[in-house]
């Protein structure tokens, strides 16, 4: 079998590793538009901060492609899929036949209509190329004033990334709060106050134009949208993203898709949607790879979850924020004006509905958070746990005893081996 993967990020790596679990022989060709070895895309902000470097941010070691029998064509874009002939056309004129194809094209920055934007040079912040350009710009313009459109994950990570490289940062957004995709109003107020305590300025609920501001550098960080152009004429079902099932299959038996370019069923709501996060990309890619090579794999559905930090403050969230709130923490919205006290605040908030945990928001109080994630993803019945126990400390006691035994216990216990030695 010969495999072609369009894209060279987490979903592609998942695809390669998935294929190699089943098929050690077949040739895998990766077509990557970016001119780089695969890197952890969310690490671009850490790169600008100086917390990682080009070598350490490699998502897989330098010999990854070679070890996995892959040919990487980097710096060349795929332009068109011919599903009838089972070929992919590249921008350099090359036409590549495939036995199985994985579309892992990711996303591209979404730039909304912003009045006056066309008059300015602006930066986006998604790829390593974007980060290097922004780095060069902040090197060239000393003490720059920066205007960022977008108070979401990308905009705020961009702000943190360049914080020490510029003199002033203003973040504007139409939304009334920061990080609206992962935080509720209360937790959002905490994070906004924390960022304000570092001197970042915000203008929210603001329908503004760059014309209204004085700045040296403009960044547009208003989110991403699935990159589906190459799949346009392939006859696939495309909504906001390329639609895939839980086997990462599209409607075409020879074409699979994974990651930020797709639309899939949510593990939490069961509804179709785009879940552009790295763990989801890897898992969908790996699932695709196993199935492409003739194995059998299914993932549990896309799990909305995010772990992200800003200036030392850690946010871990998952699921949806519906139902009864159970919370603990030192943050009160009233104290948001006292910025100096906010940095020490924590918040742990659970959302419970119909006997199940639907989601959570943890800020600097996230011990053993993955147990909560599992309760959400597996839709476990938690009606036997009271609110105090649930918020206090997560433990394997949240699971049924049979499950705990399966996880921890040696199945065939041999007589005698567990007898305690007499120490005295």
């Amino acid at each position, binding site marked *: 079998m010969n495999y072609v993967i369009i894209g060279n990020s987490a979903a592609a790596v998942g695809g390669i590793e998935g294929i190699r679990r089943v098929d050690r022989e077949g040739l895998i060709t990766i077509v990557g538009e970016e001119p780089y070895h695969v890197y952890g895309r969310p690490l671009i902000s850490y790169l600008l901060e100086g917390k990682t470097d080009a070598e350490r941010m490699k998502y897989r070691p330098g010999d990854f492609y070679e070890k996995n029998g892959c040919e990487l064509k980097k710096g060349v874009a795929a332009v068109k899929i011919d599903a009838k002939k089972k070929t992919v056309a590249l921008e350099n004129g090359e036409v590549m036949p495939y036995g199985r194809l994985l579309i892992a094209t990711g996303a591209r920055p979404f730039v909304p209509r912003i009045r006056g934007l066309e008059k300015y040079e602006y930066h986006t912040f998604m790829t390593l190329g974007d980060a290097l350009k922004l780095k060069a710009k902040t090197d060239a313009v000393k003490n720059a004033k920066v205007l960022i459109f977008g108070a979401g994950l990308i905009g705020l990570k961009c702000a943190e990334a360049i914080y020490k490289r510029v003199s002033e940062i203003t973040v504007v957004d139409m939304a009334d709060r920061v990080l609206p995709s992962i935080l509720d109003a209360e937790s959002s107020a905490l994070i906004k106050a924390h960022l304000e305590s570092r001197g970042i300025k915000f203008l929210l609920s603001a329908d503004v134009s760059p014309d209204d501001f004085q700045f040296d550098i403009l960044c547009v960080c208003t989110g991403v949208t699935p990159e589906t152009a190459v799949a346009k004429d392939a006859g696939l079902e495309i909504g906001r993203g390329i639609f895939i099932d839980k086997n990462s299959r599209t409607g075409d038996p020879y074409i699979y898709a994974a990651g930020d370019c797709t639309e899939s069923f949510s593990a939490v709501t069961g509804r179709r949607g785009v879940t552009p996060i790295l763990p989801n990309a890897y*898992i969908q890619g*790996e699932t695709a790879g196993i199935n492409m090579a003739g194995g059998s794999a299914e993932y549990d559905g896309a799990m909305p979850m995010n*772990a992200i930090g800003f200036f030392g403050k850690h946010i871990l969230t998952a699921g949806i924020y519906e139902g009864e709130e159970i919370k603990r923490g030192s943050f009160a919205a009233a104290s948001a004006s006292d910025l100096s006290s906010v940095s020490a605040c924590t918040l742990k908030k659970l959302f419970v509905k119909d006997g199940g945990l639907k989601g959570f928001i943890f800020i600097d109080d996230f011990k053993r958070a*993955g147990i909560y*994630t599992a309760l959400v993803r597996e839709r476990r019945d938690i009606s036997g746990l009271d609110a105090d126990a649930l918020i206090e400390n*997560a433990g394997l006691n949240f699971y049924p005893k049979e499950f*705990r035994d399966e996880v921890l216990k040696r199945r065939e216990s041999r007589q005698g081996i567990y007898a305690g030695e007499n120490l005295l």
Partner: protein
Amino acid sequence: MKKIYVQEEWCLKCRLCEYICAYANSGFKDIAAALKDKPINTRITVEESGRISYAVSCRHCDEPSCVKSCISGALEKVDGVVKIDKDKCVGCFTCVLACPYGAIAAGEDGAAMKCELCVENSGGSPMCVKYCPNRAIILE
């Protein structure tokens, strides 16, 4: 590859495993220097509910969620052991969010920390197993 198993009926709640774990991973030879007046940075956690107690550490899963979720490629399963490359870890804690057993925690150095079966620390083999006074933690 051998795995750590835990027999809850034999656990005495003594938490010796937590102290030994923190000591083995501290870099200190002197146990007092490692532990006295310091936070116990353990990678194994004793859970108690009522009369029941048991120690939980990394299961070194066949399908490790932490490895699949890691945004930097810092987590890898090598010869049956899920390991963290602290040099690559940026401390986002996606792994903490992904582990269904709560077996990964934030370390003092800003990177994630977890049980690596003492293969690379001063222990060489799991110290929690070696020093559990009632053999509630076993390696088989």
